[in-house]
């Protein structure tokens, strides 16, 4: 017994040690960003010797706020990203539910179509998508930023895979209890695939928040700029001033960090625990 215990303690320490070593390497970019963003704007950053700034230049952040229409871009990004994320999680989960749990004519063919579109690089579909949006009279508007992001084959595919792993008995129990397919979706599928939904939420949020090329192509007016576009402009202006650039990048990643931290806190271990006996 004691041998087992010391063994597991040793194991525990080993795990911590491993996590710490990898953790230091993954933490480094963030620290470097933060440190650089507080440097003097003409400081040399090409060697790591100057990692710790002599004086904290918080005014770099003021410059970012002053030189970009930061608040506007931030709100645009928030609005667009939230719309895309919520919309995508919603439509994807509905479609994934149909793909994972329903029998219908042409299901596998359509699903293969979903997979297929993922396999064509965006470079060649960008122009047709743009033309479609132009014909819908959407260019340079929020709909151009939001609409194409909502309908995602990626999200559908991902959620379908997770839904497939849910125990079928629960749905049958719900059917007997008086649920139609919609109520099953609401009361059984969604709560039980919480982790998957959170994951998709996090991934979509990151993707949409960072997205650069598409917003660049479809927006012209500065009051539609999302953060990456505003910061790219900022970068053109102050490209060689690393501290400013990093201050901008740091502000940019902060919301993603917050979303990730809160999102993964909602991860629930063994969400289907006690549902069925295997």
């Amino acid at each position, binding site marked *: 017994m004691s041998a087992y215990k010391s063994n597991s303690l040793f194991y525990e320490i080993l795990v911590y040690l491993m996590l710490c070593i990898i953790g230091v390497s993954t933490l480094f970019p963030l620290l470097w960003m933060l440190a650089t963003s507080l440097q003097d704007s003409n400081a040399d950053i090409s060697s790591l010797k100057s990692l710790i700034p002599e004086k904290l230049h918080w005014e770099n952040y003021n410059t970012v706020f002053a030189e970009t229409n930061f608040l506007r871009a931030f709100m645009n990004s928030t609005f667009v990203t939230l719309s895309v994320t919520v919309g995508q999680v919603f439509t994807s989960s509905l479609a994934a539910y149909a793909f994972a749990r329903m029998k219908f004519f042409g299901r596998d063919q359509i699903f293969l179509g979903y997979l297929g579109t993922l396999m064509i690089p965006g470079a060649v579909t960008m122009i047709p998508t743009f033309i479609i949006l132009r014909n819908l009279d959407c260019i340079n508007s929020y709909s151009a930023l939001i609409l194409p992001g909502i309908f995602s084959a990626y999200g559908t595919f991902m959620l379908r895979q997770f839904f497939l792993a849910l125990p079928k*008995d629960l749905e049958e129990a719900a059917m007997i*209890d008086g649920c139609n397919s919609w109520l099953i979706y609401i009361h059984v599928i969604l709560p039980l695939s919480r982790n998957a939904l959170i994951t998709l939420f996090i991934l979509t949020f990151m993707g949409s928040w960072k997205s650069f090329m598409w917003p660049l192509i479809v927006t012209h007016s500065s009051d539609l700029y999302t953060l990456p576009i505003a910061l790219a402009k900022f970068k053109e202006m102050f490209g060689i001033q690393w501290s400013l650039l990093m201050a901008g990048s740091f502000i940019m990643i902060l919301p993603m960090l917050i979303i990730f931290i809160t999102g993964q806190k909602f991860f629930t271990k063994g*969400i289907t625990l006690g549902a*069925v006996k295997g």
Partner: protein
Amino acid sequence: MSEVILNDVSKIYAGGVTAVDKINLQIKDKEFMVLVGPSGCGKSTTLRMIAGLEDISAGIAKIADRVINDVPPKNRDIAMVFQNYALYPHMSVYENMAFGLKLHKISKNDIDRRVREAAEILSMQNYLDRKPKALSGGQRQRVALGRAIVRKPSVFLFDEPLSNLDAKMRVQMRTEISKLHHRLETTMIYVTHDQTEAMTLGDRICVMKDGLIQQVDSPLNIYERPANVFVAGFIGTPPMNFIRGRLCGHKESFHFISDNGIDIPLPESWNVKLSSHAEKAAVFGIRPEDIGSEHAESVPDAPSLNCQIEVIEPMGSETYIYFNLGGSACIAKVDAHRRIKVGDSLKLPLLMSKAHLFDAETEKIIL
């Protein structure tokens, strides 16, 4: 009135596999019907068709005189207890039980009353706020039962509800389900592969095999008058002993001569029924308790078997002895106090009034 009637009901899967083949079954109101059979016999499929979880490929199913083939499960006025419990893991015990009622738009007070009532029946009052993962297996099974009870359905469906419990809990829950049936007085359909459960619970038992109904009758009738070799062998532990052979003689006196030459004279009272089977291959069946029991010994001129004991299993109240009868393994249930040991040769009388004879070709009962 909630009679369940199946008329020529079949289930054919997309691949062409027939799971259930044109079965006819009438389950009376307030009856406890047990569907029993080995796995893959179509019993669960039948239940799921009644529940509406599987489509009925052909035939008609009725609950309370209403054709339910195309009625969605929620409108069939049924409740079902699943083998795996299938509790909603994100809901508390209370919510699990209340969920179905809420969906049926029952008032909050009513829900509360019914849930507490059910909890009391199942003595789960103290666990209402718990989530399923904080319950033991037996408690989860109770919640699954409770979820069905609160609904007050006209038909209860049980899909092997006790198979995931340990032996002791299984016996306990069995009696509780039995009590529940008496208390609720509702039609119940119960699927199991365990013949003991079937015998102890059912008003009637429906024995199935390969998608076909073998026999429907009360437990005792099934035990005493099995319709064929399969039913005879499936019901009862230890199972009935079968000896293969042929029927010899004619009119006045018939003998059963086994393949390895054992000669069993058959009672005269059987003669009428045997006359049409003379000289045909047949299977002789007799239950272990009818070999060498006190009862058998008291009958004069009873035919007997000579055997050499291979294994002895004392069960306390009686003792099982295993022996080989020219290739076929046989079991006899004898008095526990009999002094015997392995290797002993015994002469065991047969209680012919309880013996059966089956047609070897059709496997149907002759007598």
